């Protein structure tokens, strides 16, 4: 093994010293609880090596992660990391993902944290397991560990003798707390990490294998559908089940307060019975209290807010050359999973097992246990892939629904899937937001003062307790939703990415957190980062224009972080920034470091505007991303490409509609998203690898920069600045005055 850095050398020698000193202390002092706070990644929460890596007597390796595959490719990336440090082929280890009976509690698979938390834990745990294997073999071979090497699942001595890993793992040897220092493999020696290992999950998805929770078929499994109230707040007054009782295949109606479900042998029988139950239900409507959709932003601003000072730096200079201000808005938007939420549940021998595409099996278990009034130890949540969620969609609620239904029919496995209108009507939306910014330029076109305010509801109403589940609010004895709280920085919620990544000597940022939620909202990919980066990066272009500067040059003049500059330059070069666009086309640029602490991403966009209709199309996009040490370059590109297309869809088309009672955009006609005619000709993602640097979460890093690049390209193409999302063709047409 070669060690490249001084840090790696130091950490290598450090490991020896620490283990010796611990051993000598142990003779005189009682064992102290391990200080896990200094361990990297999720080793802090689960410090034992065998929480992450197990090796059986045959040499079979199992890797455990508390994170879930959401379509982001995490299974493949984590296997690469483990295989690399353990010097085995990538198809050697088996991977177990989020399961409350088997894996560490890593909270939610969210916030672009999987590689940072779980990837880091697995990397360090695997490297320490590697050291354990070497030390064991050293004893057997009577050779110094430093003279041994690992090769495809065996430790090899200089004379060629080989010991399979299975021969080196007596029981309990990996049930040890991770050491604070780890001898990591040097990035220069990588053969698996930093290569384009094909995703392990795609072949089944492309050939009809069982790939999703929707595809599960347990023996004797029945199909369920829920009947939802006509809108939030309505209570069930009466339920006529006579029509349903005689329908073929129907086995059960489950009712508790306003929670209504029906179970049948065949799935379509359940759907027909659901429709019949809908017809037989009489609801006591709650008075519609939502404001007209056009007034939502004024309404939000009128609600009581908690004002949080996010940044207060420097003092405004006197005598500035130019002052600009702008206000931006973002409507409620949907996660819009292609597959409506689904879960399978079974109550057997007092144990409730739920197969769910929840992003957080442990928090969901806590919430469902409370809902069912069962001890958490008797509720077992197993993650099985679902349709992409992009945040807190209906997954947790569907899991709770399935559990309530399964409880009513012990022994019986039940599969529940929501209907499209239920997903759209009841999923927690991405919150509506308002931002207001004013800034000043000096005579040299430099920003000398910056003031930014953002208004938003919370960006997380995720479970953890029963009141955060839809079903919890519908029961005869309902659970109260918990009080919404802001997510503190540095991650942030509504204020995520509200601090510009630019060098601004005088800057103030205020987050007006609005507890009261007119519509149910929660986490949607990038949280407030989408809106804040859209706002900040739109305004950077407005400032650049006022300063008479090129947008990219203006950004570079205000950046002092070399990695930030590098992605901006790479995207601009790759795009051919500086050229003149074809007639009717515009160029736009956007940049941010996600959460100001994760991946750096810059996007340049070319957008065409059809003058007669206002219709826009992203023609091409070029992005550059720095996510630290890259595990799977193609996986990273896939994520950023997807982020660009999804964010473009949000930015150009998407706005959930509602009337006084609730959401009305219940299908893809009323909530249009990007279709193939609007897909760009090309999307190019340049990856800047940083060998040996920490993993920086990248799954959400493109949402904000892509939105800004698109908006800036609309402005460039039309000469008109649009500040209210989405930038629909009607708005574009009105702006260009045709």
């Amino acid at each position, binding site marked *: 093994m070669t060690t490249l850095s001084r840090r790696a050398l130091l950490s290598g020698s450090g490991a020896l010293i620490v283990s010796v000193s611990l051993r000598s202390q142990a003779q005189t002092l009682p064992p102290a609880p391990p200080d896990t706070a200094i361990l990297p990644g999720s080793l802090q929460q689960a410090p034992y090596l065998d929480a992450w890596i197990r090796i059986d007597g045959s040499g079979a390796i199992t890797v455990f992660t508390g994170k879930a595959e959401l*379509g982001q490719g995490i299974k493949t990336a984590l296997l690469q990391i483990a295989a690399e440090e353990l010097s085995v082929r990538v198809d050697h280890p088996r991977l177990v993902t989020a399961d409350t009976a088997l894996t560490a509690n890593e909270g939610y698979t969210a916030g672009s944290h999987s590689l940072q938390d779980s990837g880091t834990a697995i990397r360090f745990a695997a490297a320490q397991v590697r050291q354990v294997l070497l030390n064991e073999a050293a004893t057997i071979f009577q050779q110094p560990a430093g003279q041994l090497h690992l090769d495809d699942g065996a430790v090899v001595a200089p004379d060629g003798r080989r010991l399979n890993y299975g021969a080196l793992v007596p029981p309990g040897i990996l049930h040890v707390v991770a050491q604070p220092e780890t001898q990591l493999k040097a990035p220069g020696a990588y053969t698996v990490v930093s290569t384009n290992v094909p995703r392990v999950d795609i*072949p089944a998805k492309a050939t009809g294998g069982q790939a999703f929770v929707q595809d599960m078929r347990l023996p004797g499994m029945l199909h369920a559908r829920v009947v939802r109230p006509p809108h939030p707040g309505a209570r069930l007054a009466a339920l006529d089940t006579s029509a349903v009782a005689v329908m073929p295949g129907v086995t059960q109606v489950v009712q508790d307060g306003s929670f209504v479900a029906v179970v049948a042998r065949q799935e379509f029988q359940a759907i027909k019975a659901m429709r019949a139950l809908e017809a037989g239900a009489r609801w006591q409507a709650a008075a519609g209290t939502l404001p007209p959709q056009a007034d939502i932003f004024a309404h939000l601003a009128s609600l009581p807010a908690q004002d949080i000072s996010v940044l207060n730096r420097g003092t405004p200079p006197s005598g500035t050359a130019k002052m600009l201000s702008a206000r931006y808005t973002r409507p409620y938007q949907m996660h819009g999973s292609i597959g409506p939420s689904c879960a399978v549940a079974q109550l057997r021998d007092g144990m409730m097992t739920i197969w769910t595409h929840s992003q957080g099996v442990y928090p969901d278990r806590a919430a469902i246990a409370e809902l069912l009034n069962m001890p958490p130890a008797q509720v077992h949540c197993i993650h099985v*892939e679902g349709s992409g969620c*992009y945040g807190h969609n209906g997954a947790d609620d569907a899991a709770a629904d399935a559990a309530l239904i399964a409880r009513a029919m012990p022994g019986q496995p039940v599969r529940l899937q929501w209907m499209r209108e239920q997903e759209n009507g009841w999923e927690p939306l991405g919150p509506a937001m308002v931002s207001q910014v004013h800034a000043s330029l000096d005579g040299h076109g430099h920003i000398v003062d910056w003031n930014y305010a953002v208004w938003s509801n919370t960006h997380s109403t995720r479970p953890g307790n029963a009141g955060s589940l839809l079903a919890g609010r519908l029961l005869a004895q309902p659970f109260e939703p918990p009080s919404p709280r802001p997510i503190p920085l540095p991650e942030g919620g509504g204020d995520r990415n509200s601090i510009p990544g630019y060098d601004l000597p005088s800057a103030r940022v205020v987050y007006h957190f609005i507890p009261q939620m007119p519509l149910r909202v929660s986490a949607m990919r990038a949280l407030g980062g989408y809106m804040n980066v859209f706002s900040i990066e739109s305004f950077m272009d407005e400032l650049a224009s006022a300063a008479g500067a090129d947008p990219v040059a203006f950004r570079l003049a205000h950046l002092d972080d070399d990695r930030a500059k590098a992605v901006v330059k790479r995207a601009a070069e790759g795009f051919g920034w500086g050229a003149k666009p074809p007639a009717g086309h515009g160029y736009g640029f956007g940049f941010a470091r996600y959460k100001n602490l994760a991946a750096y991403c810059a996007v340049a966009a070319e957008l065409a505007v059809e003058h007669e209709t206002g219709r826009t199309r992203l023609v091409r996009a070029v992005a550059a991303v720095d996510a630290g040490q890259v595990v799977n370059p193609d996986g990273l590109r896939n994520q950023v490409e997807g982020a660009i297309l999804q964010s473009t869809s949000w930015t150009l088309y998407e706005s959930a509609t509602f009337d006084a009672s609730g959401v009305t955009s219940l299908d893809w006609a009323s909530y249009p998203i990007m279709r*193939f005619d609007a897909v760009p000709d090309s999307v190019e993602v340049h990856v800047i690898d940083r060998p040996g640097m920490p993993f920086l979460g990248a799954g959400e890093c493109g949402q904000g920069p892509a939105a800004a690049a698109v908006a800036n390209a609309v402005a460039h193409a039309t000469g008109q600045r649009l500040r209210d999302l989405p930038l629909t063709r009607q708005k574009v047409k009105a702006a260009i005055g045709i």
Partner: protein
Amino acid sequence: MILNVNGQEHDIDVDPDTPLLYALRGELGLNGAKYGCGLGQCGACTVLVDGRAAFSCVTPVMALAGKQIVTLESLGSADNPGPLQHAFIQEQAAQCGYCTAGMIMRAEALLRRNNQPSEAEIRAAMQPNLCRCGTQVRILRAVGRAAAVIRTAAEAHG
């Protein structure tokens, strides 16, 4: 009633108004066609009926007597994928993959009638199908790649 699925006749015990989707998934245990909207708006449920792409979520089985139904499963397997399946794997044209089966079947319908589609023809054919993860650029590449493979194979067979 009798349904001909992937070249085999199946006697299926469902109500005649049952959409094909539920017969395929529930009665035949096929995973490919997916429930997405039940409205023919997203294409996750796409299969072939007599060689043409159809939304299985809105096609009742009573309309399918004597028709040839083809699903994703008949195109190949994980060990031996068909040209489109192989192309989707090679291009890594998926993220969550929930739309993948419908995408492949929509493309299969196109390539059966036109193995030299232009990019514009591919886009037009794929228009009914939605992908929420944003993998469409890869999907277009995969369809183009599969078309080239199928074309080459057809030419080799003269």
